[in-house]
């Protein structure tokens, strides 16, 4: 009996015009956006390789380039907006990314701050809408048509009917997701500039799993509203209002709220702190600058120059990293506040999986500071022990990106929360349906 219901419902869905329309829209958008985004990734990757050859070779400075993440073709996150180059020298710890021409992003202020159109966006916005359209009528439409009464007059328990509807709807939704994902992954893998490692594949699998979880939240919500509201048109309206709130409004408002709740020190405060550091070092800096400005500075002059400047740099860096720490706290607050919205949770997990989030950026910057420290150390060696200096080499830039298992360990609370949402909505639908008046 259960099987009959599932098969019937699936066939109903597959025949329906809204499913066909939704699927066509999704497939076209996923195909187009993935093609564009993979091309964009390839362009940025080529730029990175070209720049690496020529820009990193300056000896007076530490120039570190940041390459694009391959999975940004599916989930762009912050990857494209952060900048590609961080510079430092003895008197300046690398602390902020800019474009290669030393211009801070973004370049298109009027158009910036729009969501990137990538796979994650299409699932978050377009597919979740499609899911609502599939789910809103599941019970309400049968009730309105009067068939619910007839179906339940058969020897069929209510819970079986609802489970059947849920299973069939989910199967259709996940089928559509599978088609879309497959398309995106194929486009990604077929591009000559893309080479995926085993860990990337695992991460993509994780993304698909989270997408499925996210869509099932909306499906469960849809069924719940469909059980509670008798008129299909009203059910659809209620669902759309919930969707607008959860996907469009709430994530935006929670960021605005976090900005107010965790305020950052003003620019003047930070500038004053830095000026205080500058005041402390001014005399020393003047002195070492003058010594080095002589026609024949001694080795001691040079060592002292490096020491004073690098100490000054470290002190300024302390101010910067304190500010950066507060920025991170603000971000954590925003994430916490927004976790009532499945769309925000979904975004967090996807960005983390694609390595296009702020944590990845922070790891990168930590690596940059480490490289700067060994650069300064080596610079001193040049005058204390020239032999050792010649033998030593500046280590290659590297940083410890999260391993896949670390990422999974980090995102499970959000994933759990998503599962919890769908479970809650489904249980509500379930109890609501058992008590439902069928007339």
């Amino acid at each position, binding site marked *: 009996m259960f099987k009959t219901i599932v098969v019937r419902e699936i066939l109903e869905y597959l025949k329906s015009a809204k499913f066909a329309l939704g699927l066509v829209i999704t497939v076209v958008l996923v195909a187009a956006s993935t093609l564009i985004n993979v091309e964009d990734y390839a362009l940025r990757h080529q730029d990175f390789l070209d720049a690496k050859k020529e820009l990193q070779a300056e000896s007076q400075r530490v120039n570190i380039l940041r390459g694009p993440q391959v999975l940004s073709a599916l989930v762009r996150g912050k990857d494209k907006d952060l900048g590609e180059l961080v510079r430092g020298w003895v008197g300046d710890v690398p602390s902020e990314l800019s*474009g290669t021409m030393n211009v*801070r992003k973004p370049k298109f202020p009027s*158009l910036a701050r729009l969501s990137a159109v990538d796979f994650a966006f299409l699932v978050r916005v377009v597919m979740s*809408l499609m899911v609502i359209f599939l789910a809103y009528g599941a019970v309400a439409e049968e009730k309105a048509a009067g068939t619910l009464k007839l179906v339940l007059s058969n020897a069929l328990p209510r819970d079986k009917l609802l489970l059947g509807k849920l299973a069939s709807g989910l199967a259709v939704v996940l089928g559509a997701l599978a088609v879309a994902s497959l398309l995106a992954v194929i486009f990604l893998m077929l591009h000559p500039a893309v080479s995926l490692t085993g860990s990337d594949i695992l991460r993509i699998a994780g993304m698909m799993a989270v997408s499925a979880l996210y869509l099932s939240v909306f499906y469960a919500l849809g069924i719940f509203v469909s059980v509670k509201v008798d008129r299909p048109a009203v059910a659809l309206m209620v669902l759309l209002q919930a969707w607008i709130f959860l996907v469009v*409004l709430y994530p935006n408002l929670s960021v605005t709220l976090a900005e107010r709740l965790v305020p950052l020190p003003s620019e003047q405060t930070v500038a004053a702190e830095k000026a205080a550091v500058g005041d402390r070092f001014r005399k020393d800096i003047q002195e070492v600058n003058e010594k080095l400005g*002589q026609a024949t500075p001694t080795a001691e002059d040079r060592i002292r120059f490096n020491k004073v400047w690098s100490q000054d740099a470290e002190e300024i860096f302390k101010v910067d990293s304190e500010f950066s720490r507060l920025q991170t706290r603000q971000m954590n607050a925003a994430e916490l506040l927004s976790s009532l919205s499945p769309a925000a949770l979904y975004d967090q997990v996807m960005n983390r999986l694609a390595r296009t989030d702020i944590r990845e950026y922070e790891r990168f910057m930590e690596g940059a500071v480490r490289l700067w420290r060994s650069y300064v150390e080596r610079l001193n060696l040049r005058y204390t022990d020239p032999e050792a200096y010649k033998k030593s080499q500046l280590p290659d830039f590297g940083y410890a990106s999260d391993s896949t298992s670390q990422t999974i360990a980090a995102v499970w609370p959000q994933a759990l929360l998503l599962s919890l949402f769908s479970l809650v909505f489904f249980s509500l639908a379930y109890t609501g349906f058992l008590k439902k008046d069928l007339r």
Partner: protein
Amino acid sequence: MKTIIHREFLDHVQSLQFIILFVLSITLFAASGFVYVRAQTERDVYFRTQMTQAERYPSTMGVNLFRRPNPLGFVAAGGDQDRPSGYAVQGGELTPLPVNPRTFKLPAIPALDWSFLIRVLFSLYVILLGYNAVSGEKELGTLRLVLANPLGRVKLLVGKYCSIMGATLVPFFAGVLVNLIIVEAFLPGGLAAADLGRVPFVLLLTLAFFSLFALLSLLFSSLISRSSLVLLTLLAVWVLFAVIIPSSSIVLAEKMSTAPSEVESARNFEPMVQKEVWARIAGIQGRVNRGEFQTEDEIRRETDRIFEEGQVKVTEFYANYARAENERARKAKAMSRISPAALFQYAAEDIVGTGDTGEENFLSQCREYSRAVDDFILRKLGRIVRVSRWSFSTNMEFQGKPIVVSSPQPPNYQGDMSDFPKFVERRPAFGEAFKSALGDLAGLLVWNILLAGLAFSAFLRTDVR
């Protein structure tokens, strides 16, 4: 006709969509007002301290010009929070002051201005109010009954159109009013009359934008007979207009642009400086050895000359880079204009003086000012020393003794600074602003006419059975 509008309007007012829209409109416009007042007060304080400092210490070595925060930023922020807060004017060169992306770690969200609420939220609600205008009545069977009365189809459709607009505009105006009251009451100094005078034009623009979505709803509602399908299609169009087209146009413009990319420019920069400056400065030592120079002063003059010649090249280089970036931005903007949401946004930005046009206007005033400063320096000091974003310092040997040569510093004029040019920012007059918005406004009107024609012809041919 009046009866229809009245009836339809009452229908809408009782609907769930309308009630929620009303509540949302008031809440969000109020939130927008408060968020704006707070941020704007901070920006104003920052601007005033920076500007007074710059005015108190005028210097021939360089002046920082700060841009006054636009008082109408709550209407259309135009991405001004991501633009440089001003420009440094030095030796005829303008360098953008660094943008401080204070909140770059937070998820990038659009500013909560009118433009966002109108483009994203209200357009969605116009659809929700209008999607079943025709198809809904058809499904219920009332369309036949209504048209059985002595009532033209055109009249019926006009009535429906007016009621959709009315049901959208009532919550909209309520929200706008709340917003204006909050800004007027809490913003220190309030709004100037000239600024308030621009608001009605933004409202007119909004009317054209809402009307477009109302017509779109009527069109699809007449074409497709199932209401849920109408809604699905309209929502797809909405996502396309509000996000997909504007967002994709950036990536496409970058891909299609033939101008050198940022990385290409960066890669060409070092070799250019090497060839134009370093190689020539290094060559001086050879010329010193050959005995071309008699005094140390002559050497310095020659290195200064070479450095200044190099500066011309560097300035040119940066100008070319800026041109390439502008070309890409223009392309992206042009492509995004397929979407009426983008048309609306650009027109609103132009009218209030934010966005690209606003920045361009400020920049041209900075250029004008920079020329005035150059005149002053020439008058008082006789020579302008260009200062770029790099400098040099190198050791040489002259007549057996080591000397240090370094890039020239701009001279600091210590004399009378009372006639040093003052910078007063002018925002473009309304006429100018309106002229630059005209193209986008025309685009919106064309969309309206086109959709009105299509909607009416579709409805006239609708099979009402």
